């Protein structure tokens, strides 16, 4: 069997597996639903996810250790992931193939030439990694610590040592320069406290292909295709920001019609990382013999645009192995020896470009945070899922993959559009109008699916504040506030209290204040009252309106006021419950019994079921705001 056929089988297998995981991320107990299927596996294999989280948190969370396997294989084999495993890459490969149908070999050869734009992906990689590195640099340079003088001395000693040994090993000069730079950075800390400025943020998810493809399938393609079948959910799933999520996916796929594997060659930061990791690969694609006719047919199906017939650009080769077969003279092979026509193992990068990209990355985070969203200007409508870490820690982990939004049975977890700026783009936030309910009390699915623990895997006991968590109380994601200007009983004297009814907390966090309010035009003169029937002075009320069970008549009975429920009415008479002495009643007040809801902030967990159920369907009359959320003490509402 040709190796390219083996590659196609591998691509098809992993793509099918990926689609299967996306479907299986459905709440339920059936065989095809969430029953321990490793639905995060591709995210866990992704070393960019692991590396970015490693840089910000200095730890490797649980399944992210899978990335070690990918890294090890890449070091030995090269960019096998791109050509053989990556589901996004397989889409590009296939669409690029469709686009090249009907093109002459000469046209295909032309389009598969290496282009200098391919170096853009390395700049993207460095910018994203350095955006995550602010904290790490501060840690090593001790910028936020107590004694910045120590690291300055430490780096200068290293720089001196390196420059003395310049002649003994290559690269010592570079190391020396880097140490001097680090000493310089540390020295800044001698004069300025940088705690407030130095910050890190995981933004690799913006362009990392694995989170991107998960998000595109889970939040756009699956709900779109399932709207015809309702196979994965009873109600239509809705997700915000689909215009952006979907356009980026569509653009990335359609660009293959211009240049095959456009995304892989030019944008993909994961491909760039693999390109750097694969520089010591034991086997590489390359020319075996000198006698080449220069026909360039090896380029005609080349996926990576790595020019295997010339001085092959190793970091660009995605191991598609097409050149092994397109070469009519069998000159290309996958060998342990270096290509006869030479190799370029370094990415096509300039030092200046590297510096600009990495410094931009470092600067971008403090630059974005000048908006104060992590400070006084925090966004109160940004309700994070239960178990979410505090905002800076959250942004240190979240890779914007959308798995929590996919798995949430009620569809309340939504990708954020702009509430928290570009830093928070696609991160999870709760929207109680979009889903089929609020956050369900007995559900902790999001924290258990989150591949990076940006949402902690909390237990039900912890969420509900039971057992060992009794003292800490339940996890709160916000507090509900009644808008008395919109609430039916408060603003319009209409009975309602759906919010109170659906509040799942025991005792309920929403309680009611009972009152009797005279309706508009409800002070009425009485002509005659006998038994249980009150005849009005003149027919002035709407027939059949007040017999609903919610209306009462208030009148003087003897020396005291008495209130009786109205059973029915005509335009000129009212029938009330029996048991009242109506003799001498000259006037009545027609009253409605109201139960007006109020929130007990000690009990409210911010689950938002009240907001979801509120019948004021436009701008809801009860809304959850992030005050009181457990993850931020400084957002607390109550004096404790």
């Amino acid at each position, binding site marked *: 069997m040709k190796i390219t056929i083996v590659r196609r089988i591998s691509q098809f297998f992993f793509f099918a597996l990926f689609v299967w995981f996306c479907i299986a991320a459905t*709440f*339920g*107990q059936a065989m095809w639903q969430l029953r321990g299927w490793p639905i995060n596996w591709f995210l866990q294999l992704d070393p960019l996810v692991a590396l970015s989280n490693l840089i910000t948190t200095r730890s490797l969370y649980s399944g992210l250790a899978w990335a070690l396997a990918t890294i090890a294989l890449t070091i030995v084999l090269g960019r096998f992931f791109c050509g053989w495993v990556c589901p996004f890459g397989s889409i590009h490969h296939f669409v690029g193939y469709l686009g090249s149908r*009907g*093109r002459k070999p000469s*046209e295909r050869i032309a389009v598969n030439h290496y282009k200098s734009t391919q170096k853009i992906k390395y700049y993207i990689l460095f910018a994203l990694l350095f955006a995550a590195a602010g904290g790490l640099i501060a840690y090593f340079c001790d910028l936020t610590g107590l004694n910045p003088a120590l690291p300055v001395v430490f780096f200068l000693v290293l720089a001196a040592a390196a420059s003395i040994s310049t002649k003994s090993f290559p690269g010592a000069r570079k190391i020396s320069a880097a140490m001097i730079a680090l000493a310089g950075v540390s020295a800044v800390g001698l004069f300025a406290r940088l705690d407030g400025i130095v910050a890190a943020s995981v933004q690799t998810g913006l362009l990392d292909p694995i989170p991107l493809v998960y998000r595109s399938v889970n939040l756009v393609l699956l709900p779109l295709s399932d709207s015809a079948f*309702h196979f994965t*959910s*009873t*109600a*239509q799933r809705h997700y915000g920001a689909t215009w952006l999520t979907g356009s980026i996916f569509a653009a990335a796929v359609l660009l293959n019609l211009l240049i095959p594997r456009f995304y892989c060659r030019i944008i993909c930061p994961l491909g760039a990382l693999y390109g750097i990791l694969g520089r010591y690969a034991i086997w590489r694609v390359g020319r075996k013999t000198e006698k080449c006719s220069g026909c360039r047919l090896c380029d005609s199906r080349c996926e990576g645009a790595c020019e295997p017939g010339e001085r092959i650009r190793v970091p660009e080769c995605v191991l598609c192995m097409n050149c092994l077969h397109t070469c009519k003279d069998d000159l290309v092979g996958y060998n342990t020896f270096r290509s006869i026509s030479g190799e370029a193992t370094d990415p096509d990068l300039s030092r200046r470009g590297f510096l600009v990209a990495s410094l931009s990355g470092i600067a971008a985070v403090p630059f974005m945070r000048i908006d104060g969203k992590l400070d006084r200007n925090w966004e109160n409508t940004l309700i994070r899922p239960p178990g979410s870490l505090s905002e800076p820690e959250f942004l240190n982990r979240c890779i914007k993959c959308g798995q929590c939004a996919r798995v949430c*049975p*009620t*569809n309340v977890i939504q990708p954020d559009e702009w509430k928290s700026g570009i830093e928070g783009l696609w991160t999870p936030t709760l929207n109680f109008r979009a*889903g*089929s*309910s609020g956050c*369900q*009390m*007995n*559900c902790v699915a999001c924290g258990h699916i989150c591949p990076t623990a940006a949402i902690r895997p909390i237990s039900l006991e912890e969420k509900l504040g039971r057992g060992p968590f009794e003292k800490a109380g339940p996890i709160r994601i916000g507090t509900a506030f009644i808008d008395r200007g919109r609430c*039916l009983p408060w603003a319009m004297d*209409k*009975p*309602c*209290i*759906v919010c*109170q*009814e*659906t*509040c*799942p*907390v*025991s*005792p*309920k966090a929403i309680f*009611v204040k009972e009152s009797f309010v005279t309706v508009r035009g409800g002070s009425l003169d009485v002509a005659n009252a006998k038994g249980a029937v009150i005849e009005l002075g003149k027919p002035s009320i709407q027939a059949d309106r007040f017999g*609903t*069970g*919610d209306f009462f008549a208030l009148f003087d009975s003897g020396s005291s006021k008495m209130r009786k*429920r109205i*059973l029915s009415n005509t335009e000129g008479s009212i029938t009330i*419950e029996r048991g009242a002495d109506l003799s001498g009643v000259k006037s009545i007040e027609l009253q409605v019994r109201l*139960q007006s809801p109020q929130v007990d902030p000690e009990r409210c967990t911010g689950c938002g*079921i009240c907001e979801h*159920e*509120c*019948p004021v*369907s436009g701008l809801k009359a009860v809304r959850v705001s992030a005050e009181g959320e457990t993850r931020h003490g400084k957002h607390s509402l109550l004096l404790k």
Partner: protein
Amino acid sequence: MTKKIPKVPEDRKGAGIDRRDFIIRSVKAGAALAVSGSLGYFLYDPAGPGPASEKSSLALPDFSIPEAGKKIAIVTGHDRVKSVNSGLKAIGGIGTFIRKGDRVLIKVNAAFATPPALCATTHPEILSELVRLCLAAGAASVSVTDNPINNPESCFELSGIGEAARASGASLILPKETLFSNLTVPGANFIRNWPVLLGAFQGITKLIGLSPIKDHNRSGASMSIKNWYGLIGGRRNIFHQDIHTFIRDLALMVKPTLVILDGTFTMISNGPTGGSISDLKKTDTVIVSTDQVAADAAGAVLLGKAPTDLPFLIKAEQAGAGTTDFSSLNPVRVTG
């Protein structure tokens, strides 16, 4: 990928149009004119859109069995499975209601995503037993449905109802949007051209309501009649503005074969969600009746309420849906 453009023959370049070309062009132009003109003619709408019209509505059949008569059994016992058996036996046995080949729909209360121990939903044990009894009586199929308040999938899984239905051989009907169609109930105030879960009733010949007894702040109680709220779709929360009239509408909409109230535990506070064992009271009662109003009047006793405390019951009675004077039906009182 350059497309080949048909070449104009050398001798025709710059030449005037000939007869053949003229006829071909005229025919094509004429056809294009005819198509666009006739499309315009047939699609011409001089009036524009008018106000929304009421679409013709379907009806919900009457599932009651007149010859079975109005009956009620009140069973005392701590085992709901035994109680439901004795209750059914007391009013003539399951065979009176379910015949061979019947297709039975059981409307449970699965409103909330809470575990069965909290009794905010129909208990899975009593559901399994009822399904078993129906199938044993010869029912061709048994389906279980509800349109819950919380997320449907979560509700059916966490309440244990989904598992109970599957294990006992019933099918679970999730409230998919396609199953709702508009219904107008004659004599109803609010259920007019309103979406109802009619799809679940396809081919159904018998309907049983199976619900818990719960405190409910707005209406006073949630029992058999209020349980039909879970057949309603759309923006149903709006009916809370006049809930008693609406529950009366529900009593007019549904004419069940049987209703069963499980008062083994009664939710006496914090209803209808509950959420804590302390919201429940052990009342050791199961009520089985062919009259939903009578069943609810009997159930209200467990909540310490009289029919006059529940305006919807009086209204349902006045509308002819049943009697609140359940003792007039000579209730069969048995010990489970």
